[in-house]
């Protein structure tokens, strides 16, 4: 059997292996470019009806924090919200909410209706701060370490598996990524 005739079959095999591996990947998820970088400089007022806005300093309090990007117009945010409520109720994890491009009244009503798990909220009315955080969809959730260094980003609805396998360990300081300046 001459090699020449076997080439197409061999080439296909390589491609098939690649495709097989490809099936295990998640092409829609773009990893954050900000992992291992300090949080951007920002300062936002609180969501209407709440005290305590959100600023860079709040993310350098010495203990890791969660930052959840949410909006009242975001359907999947409703789906993950109970998990955050549970987290707020049963643990002492610091959770901040970054409210993206929401009319103040809408955001306030949403939190009143479904509950407010956030220790502090930041109302990002025009979405600029979200862009600085590299947010491109809602919801997204960040883990930031005590020194204000972004450790991890989860895209889309937060599930219990991801919470237990990726988020909680990092909140406890494991899998730490050092910060570039």
């Amino acid at each position, binding site marked *: 059997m001459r090699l020449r005739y076997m080439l197409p079959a061999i080439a296909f095999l390589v491609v098939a292996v690649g495709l097989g591996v490809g099936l295990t990947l998640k092409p*829609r998820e773009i990893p954050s470019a900000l992992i291992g970088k300090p949080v951007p400089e920002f300062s936002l007022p609180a969501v209407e009806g709440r005290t305590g806005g959100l600023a860079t300093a709040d993310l350098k309090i010495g203990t890791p924090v969660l930052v959840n990007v949410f909006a009242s117009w975001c359907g999947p945010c409703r789906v993950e919200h109970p998990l955050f409520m549970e987290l707020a109720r049963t643990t002492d994890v610091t959770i901040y909410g970054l409210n993206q491009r929401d*009319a103040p009244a809408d955001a306030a009503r949403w939190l009143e209706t479904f509950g407010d798990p956030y220790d502090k909220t930041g109302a990002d009315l025009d979405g600029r701060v979200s*862009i600085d955080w590299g947010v491109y969809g809602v919801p997204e959730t960040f883990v930031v370490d005590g020194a204000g260094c972004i450790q991890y980003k989860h895209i889309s609805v937060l599930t219990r598996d991801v919470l237990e396998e990726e988020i909680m360990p990092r909140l406890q300081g494991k899998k730490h990524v050092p910060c570039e300046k």
Partner: protein
Amino acid sequence: MRILAIVMLLAGVFAAPAVAQYVDQPLSDPQLEHRAQVLHKEIRCLVCQNQAIADSNAQLARQLRVIVRERLEAGDSDSDVKTYLVDRYGDWVLMRPPLKASTLILWIAPFVILAFVLGGAAMFVLRRRRQQQASVTPLDAQEEARLAAILDEQN
């Protein structure tokens, strides 16, 4: 229900929004606006995932278009603008994959393919030529004699 929807649609379109609406307002400097539009074609819309922000009407695309314009007005060069976005979203936000080690293969591949193809063509031509020569096998002594006899007859 329908009336409500129309009213809401008009309200969204006409009202001065508390939430910023990102509107494509061209820059007053035509050169800057031209640069903006070129950049818009080179930046990927991350929620549409295979369109440039120039081609998409998604909220994020509009927002990024406005941001590109703002940065140009602030005096950024084209590469500054791209760096600004890459810092936040990674290389992935650029439509043209940057030339670095991992994408070198991508950019070189077409030339390699072409070389293969032309090489294949050359091989093909050579093989044909060899085949043609090989198919002309010399006659043996008996066949030579017969050929000579036939030719004599013809003459």
